[in-house]
C-alpha cells in the first residue's frame, strides 16, 4: 500500500505538471549556460592551478560542475517541498490530503517524489552535457559510491525541506531557515571552491553541513576513481545526518500539523 500510494503521488504530479515540457527545455537551456560560464572561468584559471584542487584531479571545470549540478538538487528539495506545502495550503489540497487515511510521512515523501525525480534528471543531464560538450574529465566512476552518496544526500535534503515546510505551515511567512541554510551551503559547502581554501576558523562550519560530505563523496566517486572504502567516511557522515535529521524532521512536521490544527492555519485564511 505504501509503495502504491507513492506511485499514485508520482503519477498525479506527472499528469498534472502543467508545463513540464517548457520547464525541461528552459532548465536545460539554463544548464547549458551555466556549464558554458564555468567552462570559460576554468579556462581563465587553467594556468594558475591551485594546490587545493589537486585532491580532485586538479581540473577546476570538473570540480565545479559536480558542485553546481548537485547543489541544484539541494535548492530544489529545500525550496521545493516548502513551496509545495505552501501552495497546498492555499488551494485546500493540504486539507484534502489530511482527511484521507494516509499518514504524514507518506504525504511528505509522496509530494516530494516528482521534484526529486525531476532534479535528479537535471543533475544527470548537467553532468552529461559537461562531459559530452565541454570535455569534462571523469575518473573511473564508482557507481555504487555515487549512488549511495546520492540517495543519502536526497534523504538529508528532504529532511531539511520538511523542516522548512513545517516552519512555513505554522507561520505562513517566508522561511529564513531554509534560505539561510541554502545560502550558507553555497558559500561553505564546497560548491564553487574546495573548502581547503577557507580560513580554519570558519572551516569547522563547513563540516556541520551535509552538502560538504555529499560533494566530497561525489567528487571522489566521479573524478578521482576512489574506492568505496575511501568514500566511506563521507558516506558515513551523510548517513549520520540522515538518520538524525529525517526522524527529527518528521516529528517536527507532525508537531507543526498539530499546531496548525490548533491555529486554523492548515488553510489559507
Amino acid at each position, binding site marked *: 500500500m505504501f509503495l*502504491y500510494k507513492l506511485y499514485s503521488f508520482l503519477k*498525479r504530479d506527472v499528469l498534472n505538471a502543467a508545463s513540464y515540457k517548457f520547464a525541461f527545455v528552459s532548465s536545460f537551456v539554463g544548464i547549458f549556460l551555466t556549464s558554458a560560464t564555468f567552462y570559460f572561468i576554468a579556462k581563465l584559471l587553467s594556468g594558475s592551478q591551485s594546490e587545493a584542487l589537486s585532491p580532485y584531479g586538479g581540473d577546476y571545470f570538473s570540480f565545479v560542475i559536480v558542485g553546481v549540478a548537485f547543489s541544484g538538487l539541494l535548492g530544489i528539495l529545500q525550496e521545493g517541498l516548502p513551496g509545495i506545502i505552501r501552495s497546498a495550503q492555499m488551494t*485546500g*489540497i493540504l486539507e484534502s490530503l*489530511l482527511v*484521507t487515511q494516509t499518514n504524514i510521512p507518506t504525504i511528505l515523501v509522496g509530494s516530494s517524489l516528482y521534484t526529486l525525480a525531476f532534479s535528479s534528471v537535471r543533475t544527470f543531464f548537467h553532468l552529461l552535457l559537461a562531459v559530452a560538450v565541454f570535455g569534462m574529465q571523469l575518473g573511473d566512476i564508482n557507481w555504487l559510491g555515487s549512488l549511495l552518496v546520492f540517495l543519502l544526500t536526497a534523504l538529508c535534503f528532504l529532511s531539511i525541506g520538511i523542516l522548512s515546510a513545517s516552519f512555513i505551515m505554522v507561520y505562513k511567512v517566508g522561511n529564513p531557515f531554509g534560505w539561510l541554510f541554502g545560502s550558507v551551503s553555497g558559500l561553505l559547502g564546497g560548491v564553487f571552491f574546495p573548502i581547503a581554501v577557507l580560513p580554519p576558523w570558519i572551516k569547522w562550519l563547513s563540516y556541520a553541513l551535509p552538502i560538504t560530505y555529499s560533494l566530497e563523496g561525489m567528487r571522489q566517486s566521479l573524478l578521482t576513481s576512489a574506492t568505496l572504502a575511501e568514500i566511506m567516511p563521507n558516506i558515513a557522515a551523510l548517513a549520520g545526518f540522515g538518520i538524525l535529521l529525517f526522524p527529527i524532521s518528521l516529528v517536527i512536521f507532525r508537531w507543526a500539523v498539530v499546531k496548525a490544527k490548533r*491555529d486554523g492555519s*492548515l488553510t489559507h485564511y
Partner: protein
Amino acid sequence: MDKNKAVITEGLVKHYPVIKGYRELLLHPVSKKQTTALAGVDLEVNKGECFCLLGPNGAGKTTLIKVFSTLVLPNEGKAFVNGLDVEKDSKKIRGSIGFAISEERSFYWRLTGRQNLEFYAALNNIPRSQRKTKVDEVLALTQLEEAVNLRYNTYSTGMRQMLAFARALLIDSQIIFVDEPTRSLDPQAALRVRRFLKEELVSKQGRTVFWATHNLDEAQQYGDRIAIIAKGKIRVIGTVDRLTDGGEISLQEVYAAAMKKGSV
C-alpha cells in the same frame, strides 16, 4: 455513548489566534489576541437524518465541520463522531466520515475526474484491484459518468461540486459533511445537489448528511432538523415544524429572532 447519534458535541469552544505577520511575530511573540469561532456548542445529530446547520457568514459553521473532520482541534469541550472522540481517535474518524471539500482548487485541474478520484482512492487505502469498481460506483452515483475522462478544468461549477461528493463517498462512511454546497451554483445545479443529498444519500441510502448552509429556504425544505448558529453558539434547534410552531410563524421570523436575542 449513544449509538444512534452521528455527532455529539459538549461545550465545544474554538478560538483562533489572530494572524500575525513577521512584524507582530517579532514584537509580540506570545500575544494572546484571538477570535472566538465556537463559543460553547452543544449539539446532537441523529443517524440517518438530513441535518441543516443554518447561520450567517462567520457564525462558525465551517469551523464546526472542520472539528468533526479532524482538521481543526478544539480548545475546550468534546466532540464525537460515530462515537469516536475527535482528539483521541482522529485516525479512525478519518476512515469513517466523508468531508466533501468543495474548494475548487483542491482538485488537480489538469487531471480528469477519474484520475483525481483514483488518486484519492489510493490515499484512502482502496486496493488497486478494487479501485476501478469503487471509482465507477461513486461516479455513477454522482452522475458524472460522461465527464469522467474530461479534465477537471473543463467541469462546470455544478459538476465540480458533484465530484467533491464523489471524493467524499470513496469512503463508505455513514456520515457526510457538506459545507455550503450550493453557494455558487445556478438554480438548476443547486436543485440537483440538494436532491442528491436528500433523496439519494439520506432517503435512499440512509446516510447522515450534515449540511452547513446560509440559505433559509434550503434549510427549511431539506432539513429534517435545523440548528441555527450565530456567533459560535447554537441559538435554536429542532424540526421545522417545531421551530415554526407548526407553521404559526415563518422560519424567517425564527431566524431573525435567533440572530437578535441570543440563546433561547
